[in-house]
């Protein structure tokens, strides 16, 4: 592996320097150009707002609700995507019959369903989870389906030449062969899950970070909005990191370079 791809202490220091420079510019540049704080609050103002929101606005409670919705939506949506992906993958006929509808649903913007789900399920966590499930489902299903279609037929013939059953072909070849693309799908899904949940919360409800976004907007308090965006990003980073962590464990047999490439 070349030096350019590894994080040396020097590179890490440089990376940290970029962050500090950015924060400093954010703190001191806007006042120089007379940008008022209610338009663009500086990092210190946001930090103080963060502390205030923990104390007064139940920030951890709202963050927890959103994180819960993200995790539940991600897990259920991924499972559904995997199940449907594998079922369609092993039965090309079912795929042929259902593909126009799947395509249509895939093209439909999933977040547009959010108001509908809120109308159906009220101001609860369920419509948010449902939007997340819907938005997570497609990248997972499509990746699984494509992967199972592109398994080397010679591998399947090899198993068949040993008189394998259909089930053995699935669990000894097709399933493990689809894991790398499945994880690529899960990575995308982990970031999409948050979008689904936030849109659901924006549409209706009185808890979660999406609600705090609306609340901050209503108050004209840009700092609340910034704090909320940062918390959403934090949830996203953790969710993505969890998928990458799981991927590194499950796909430990792949050469390292391949890990980074996919």
């Amino acid at each position: 592996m070349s030096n350019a791809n590894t994080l040396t202490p020097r590179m890490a220091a440089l990376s940290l320097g970029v962050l500090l420079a950015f924060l400093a510019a954010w703190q001191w540049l806007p006042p120089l150009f007379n940008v008022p704080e209610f338009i663009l609050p500086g990092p210190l103002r946001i930090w103080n707002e963060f502390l205030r929101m923990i104390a007064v606005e139940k920030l951890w409670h709202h963050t927890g609700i959103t994180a819960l919705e993200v995790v539940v939506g991600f897990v259920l949506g991924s499972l559904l995507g995997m199940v449907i992906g594998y079922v369609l993958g092993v039965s090309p006929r079912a795929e042929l019959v259902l593909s126009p509808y799947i395509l249509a649903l895939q093209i439909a913007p999933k977040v547009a369903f959010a108001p509908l789900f809120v109308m159906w399920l009220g101001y609860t966590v369920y419509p948010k989870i449902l939007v997340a499930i819907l938005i997570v489902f497609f990248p997972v299903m499509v990746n699984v389906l494509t992967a199972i279609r592109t398994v080397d037929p010679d591998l399947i013939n090899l198993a068949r030449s040993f008189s394998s059953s259909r089930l053995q072909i699935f669990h000894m070849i097709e399933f493990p062969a689809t894991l790398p693309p499945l994880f690529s799908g899960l990575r995308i899904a982990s970031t999409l899950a948050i979008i689904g949940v936030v849109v659901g919360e924006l549409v209706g409800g009185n808890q979660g970070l999406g609600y705090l976004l609306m609340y901050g907007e209503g108050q004209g308090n840009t700092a609340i909005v910034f704090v909320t965006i940062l918390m959403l990003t934090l949830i996203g980073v953790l969710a993505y990191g969890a998928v990458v962590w799981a991927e590194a464990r499950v796909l430990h047999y792949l050469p390292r370079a391949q890990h980074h490439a996919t």
Partner: protein
Amino acid sequence: MTQHAPGVGSNRSDSNIRIEFRKVSKRFAPQNAGAAPVTAVEDVSIAIADGEIVSLIGPSGCGKSTLLNMGSGLYLPSEGEVFVDGEPVTGPNRHVAFMLQKDLLLPWRTIRENIEFGLEIRHVDAAQRRDTAMRLLNKCRLSGFENHYPHQLSGGMRQRAALARTLAVDPKVLLMDEPFSALDAQTKMVLQRDLAQTVVEEKKTTLFITHDLVEGVALSDRVLVMSRRPGRIVREMKVDLGDRGDPFARRLSPRMGAYVKELTDLLDIGHQELL
């Protein structure tokens, strides 16, 4: 053409025959409706005696791989039949195993687990699988690599692992489709020797498809030459160099050149017959 099928060794008794293709043809449905079906092989008869190695040489696309797939029971012939030990082949069976140019090692399995693959499909218990795998790892000179993953091995080692996996199910017949053609010249020679020794020791009957005329002669008792599509066996050549377990010695034999010359000529004759 000839009176008796050219692939059948005339001096061998039928009881000795391990695998036989009897007047086998294979047609595939055309890609688009209305077109004529594609005939991959036509009226091919080959009989291979117990312990014999027969090489099959011919131009690309002449249906060699189709023959091999029919031998392993993956396709059934459109006409004619394949017999293993006198029993007609109706599907994949435990007496035949194949090996391709691609090693087909599963990247998520260690080398040992890859070698055990066929045994696992056949529900052999874990302890016995392990014994077989370790014995073959040793035989194929892969000891110490049992817990490595395929990507950690060189091409030659991977192909030796593929050979070990093929031998693990203890087939009577090995069907090999250009197994060494992706390897560099030196690795290839070493693997040819390994294969030749293994086949002698384990008394395997082998049908070996190759593009490499020297390889075919060095490894085989007989070389069959196929024509362009639709593939037919146009000629049979017996190789009488002795010492089949040592392809190095055979390569150096002064008569090697004559055999290769004869094959080169035969392949040209094959062209002219069909053009």
